[in-house]
């Protein structure tokens, strides 16, 4: 088993290389040298100064040289400095990542806690009113644009009812609150963003859980379990569920990029200072070092998510565990 884990870790390296190549190409293969926009914004920059910038950023060297030097730097997490405010990119990202991770982890937890029971119930009561109602709910959930849901919620709960704050992650008087008060404050600010973030995944996951459960319920070993005289509850929740959850682990891993990408919208609409919003701001400001860095880190998080999912699957499915 350890051999499998090590193998898996090693196979990540070419992936990382590929990720860096694509991140680099996305920015540098586009028409117009990156340095143009940062300097054309400022009419006072003279021709000599622009030339200086070109040399400083190494933009006069051939592309593969630029790539290699950038690659060398990012292995030490040196993503350069932001074009917008000159801060070290890695610092900017580091200050924003915790919030994004918090929202995404909360989303995943909620999705698991709610979608799995919904899926199981839908499968067990296949064709019932309950199942059809949940199916409709799931389809609508798939189709709702996240930003629209966010706006509707903000308008209703934030403005009309005034129950929840609609911007930011802390209130003005945050510092004066007790520890418990601070917790509560952040919590109140996170309710709507987390809800919007997990809504789509909730729909998808319960649908997958339902299909997985249905497939398992038709398997022979479920017949055996029933023939053994086990209660239906035992058959469903012990025998069927454990098998039905296996593909869900993989699907969970696959949903990570969607959640991270979705954080752009959620954070922008709710004004949350996370990595998604940072990305949006750097896109608007053509802040290429930050854009490249977030691309790489976003992909890295996805790889991490997939890796964790694979390892969990390893522990959950005995068939994989004992094979070499």
């Amino acid at each position, binding site marked *: 088993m350890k051999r499998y884990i090590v193998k898996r870790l090693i196979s990540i390296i070419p992936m990382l290389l590929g990720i860096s190549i694509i991140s680099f190409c996305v920015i540098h293969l586009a028409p117009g040298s990156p340095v143009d926009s940062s300097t054309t914004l400022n009419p006072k920059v003279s021709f000599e100064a622009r030339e200086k910038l070109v040399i400083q950023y190494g933009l006069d060297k051939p592309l593969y040289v630029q790539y290699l030097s950038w690659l060398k730097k990012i292995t030490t997490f040196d993503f350069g400095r932001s074009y917008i405010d000159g801060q070290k990119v890695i610092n900017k990202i580091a200050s924003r990542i915790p919030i994004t991770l918090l929202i995404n982890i909360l989303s995943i937890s909620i999705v698991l806690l709610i979608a799995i029971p919904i899926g199981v119930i839908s499968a067990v*009561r*296949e*064709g*019932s*009113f*309950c199942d059809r109602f949940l199916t409709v709910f799931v389809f609508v959930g798939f189709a709702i644009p996240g930003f629209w849901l966010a706006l509707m919620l903000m308008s209703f709960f934030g403005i009309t009812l005034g129950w929840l704050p609609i911007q930011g992650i802390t209130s003005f008087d945050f510092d004066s609150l007790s520890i418990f008060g601070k917790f509560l404050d952040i919590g109140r600010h996170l309710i709507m963003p987390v809800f919007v973030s997990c809504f789509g995944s909730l729909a998808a996951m319960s649908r997958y859980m339902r299909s997985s459960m249905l497939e398992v319920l038709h*398997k*022979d*070993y479920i*017949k*055996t*379990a*029933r*023939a*053994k*005289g*086990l*209660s*239906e509850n*035992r058959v469903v929740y012990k*025998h069927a569920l*454990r*098998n039905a959850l*296996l593909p869900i682990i993989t699907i969970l891993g696959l949903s990570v990029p969607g959640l991270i990408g979705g954080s752009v919208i959620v954070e922008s609409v709710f004004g949350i200072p996370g990595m998604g919003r940072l990305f949006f701001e750097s896109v608007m400001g053509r802040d290429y070092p930050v854009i490249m860095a977030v691309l790489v880190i976003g992909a890295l998080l996805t790889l991490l998510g997939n890796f964790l999912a694979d390892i969990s699957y390893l522990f*959950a*499915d*005995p*068939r994989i565990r*004992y094979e070499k």
Partner: protein
Amino acid sequence: MLSINDLTVEYYRDDPPYSSVGPISANHSKACVEGRAVDGVRLKIPKGAIFALVGESGCGKTTLGLAITGLINQRDGRISAGSVILDNKNILKSSQKEFQDIRGKQITYIFQEPASSLNPVFTIGEQIDEALIVHKITTKKDAKGIAIASLQKAQIDDPERVYHSYPYQLSGGMKQRAMIAMAISTGPKLLIADEPTTALDTDTENEILKLLLKLRDELSLSVLLITHDMRIVQRVADQVAVMYRGEIVEVGTAEKLLRVPKHEYTKLLLFSMPEKLKL
């Protein structure tokens, strides 16, 4: 020991109207009935005998087995008439809970595909222990002992290893033996074996059949052996019932039926065998 009287099982068309939980109403089911999988079947299965139920695919023999144990899916069909008497009690009138008590304890089942009939995420031991614990045969502590004893009875040479193995680690024959061990561990009166050797190669098939004979002798176990293969009937059956299109067309002791078949269909089955095994 077990007698089946006038049992009739109706099955539904492909798309029956759905219901949430609970039996489909009588009106609905009348509208959707497609036909009768089992039609007025009468059988008497004695103690300590191998009773073969033979017929072609789709004749209703599997459905009969499912009906006796109350495993007919409410959505697929229902028992519309008849009774099944075990120990002077009509088990078809049992509640869900009572049936769960009978299933797996007094009447046990083994299926055709050993490869898929065992839950892949639990060890053999866990699955046998479960049967013992749920039916309150023994406590958790003693379950392992009885499970290993059952595995031994099923002619498994290394019961300790098999106890801790997962299904995928065993061969087809081993898996079927483990299934049989699980089925006899609760000391049942009747074992229903639905095509138990169809998925196995000839050598393994012989071993399993020999095992069934041994269990019949050592445990006084009654076996309802459902099969389409007349050679198996020749080899192990004490009594035979021939089924065609949901009805029993001929029934009797193996000796008489195989030597002097009365019904046309029985004759057809016998003469269509490629070679006859020596008894």
